[in-house]
């Protein structure tokens, strides 16, 4: 009692061991309990002397937070009526356990529903996105096609272009190719869409030649396939008496192999 431990106990300045020790002693010795009580009363009064009234707003705020924290004040009342205490506390606990059970079940249900909904919405979004991409591609394809056709139409409308029809030789009587040539603009285009040539294989390609004063001039290579479309621009030439096509090694050769001549057409 003389050591000051009781004072420190009341001031909350003891460790766990000391705390239990003091509490045990107080239970055994009424004198110690009375001493403690007196110290506690003094400190309570001391705190009251130095009390500071918190602002009125805080009162409502604190009381509200107590209500939202526990829902009611059953806990507090229960400790006043000591003989009922155990029973009431038990009820409250039961109630809160039940509450958490239901709350947990509700949360779980909600979670499952949310996940299912999310999944459905996600799938919808994915297929919508797919459709959108398809449509964008289609639009792109159309606009490309329109651009291309516009370009081709420009060439066909251009009066400086002459259309020269190349005919098959004895070897390939059915072959046909139209060459659009503008001497003024030095442009040579071939019409792959209406071309009639047997498809070439991987090792060969067709090569277009211009005959200028009896000499062959290379105008570039092209491929024939069943689904070829559009106009293909070849190398430029300003003067030519005739155009011819031979089948050559892939990539073309410097001078034509006359044995493989498949098409020929005069410019005049």
């Amino acid at each position, binding site marked *: 009692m*003389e*050591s*000051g431990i009781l*004072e*420190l106990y*009341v*001031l*909350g*300045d003891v460790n766990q061991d000391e705390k239990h020790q003091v*509490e045990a002693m*107080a*239970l055994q010795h009424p004198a110690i309990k009375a001493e*403690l*009580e*007196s*110290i*506690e*009363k*003094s*400190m*309570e*009064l*001391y*705190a*009251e*002397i*130095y*009390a*500071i*009234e*918190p*602002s009125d707003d*805080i*009162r409502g*705020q*604190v*009381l509200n*937070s*107590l*209500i939202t*924290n*526990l829902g009611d*004040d059953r*806990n*507090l*009342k*229960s*400790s*006043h009526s000591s003989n009922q205490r155990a029973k009431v*506390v038990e009820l409250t606990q039961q109630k809160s356990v039940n509450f958490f059970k239901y709350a947990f079940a509700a949360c779980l249900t909600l979670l499952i529903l949310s996940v299912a909904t999310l999944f459905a919405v996600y799938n919808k979004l994915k297929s919508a996105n797919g459709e959108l991409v398809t449509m964008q591609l289609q639009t792109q394809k159309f606009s490309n096609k329109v651009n291309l056709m516009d370009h081709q139409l420009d060439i066909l409308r251009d009066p400086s272009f002459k259309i020269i029809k190349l005919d098959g030789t004895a070897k390939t009587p059915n072959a046909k190719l139209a060459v659009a040539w503008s001497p003024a603009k030095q442009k040579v285009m071939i019409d792959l869409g209406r071309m009639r040539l047997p498809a070439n294989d991987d090792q060969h390609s067709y090569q277009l030649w211009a005959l200028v004063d009896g000499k062959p001039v290379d105008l570039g290579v092209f491929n024939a396939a069943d689904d070829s479309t559009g106009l293909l621009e070849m190398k430029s030439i300003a003067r030519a008496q005739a155009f011819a096509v031979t089948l050559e090694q892939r990539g073309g050769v410097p001078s034509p192999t006359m044995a493989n001549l498949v098409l020929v057409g005069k410019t005049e």
Partner: protein
Amino acid sequence: MAAEALYDMYSASLYGVIVRIVIDTAVAEDVLQESFVKIWQSFSSYSADKGRLFTWMVNIARNLSIDKIRSKDFKNQTKNQELENNVTFIDEQKNTVYKPELLGIRDLVQKLKPEQKSILDLVYFKGYTHVEAADELGVPLGTIKTRLRMAIQQLRKSFN
């Protein structure tokens, strides 16, 4: 309602302790609220044969206050004020409660020896442990304990 009664009876005393520890009014109001919530929630762990209700409550409030001033974000905003001046500083600033029945006792408290009162206030109102108080004041531990005991005995004499 029990909550209201509890608040009206003890909020000012608790707030007086809290505000002297944390100083800042807004922080003190937060701590007061936290204290009442904690008191409310852990009420089933209070037992009357272990001591008076107020002792239990003020220890909760003091511990929360100390936690607050030792927390990181609090340390950043603290303005340094001289320890010894805190209690008077606050008394000048805030509306201390004047209860007529306490007037006489207040005078008696003023009769505490300054070295007794400063230790009592360090521990009770500043949340110091007696070990920290010994460090702060440069006084041996035994002296601290004796002075605390004398201070409280003086109070008891005054209050009886």
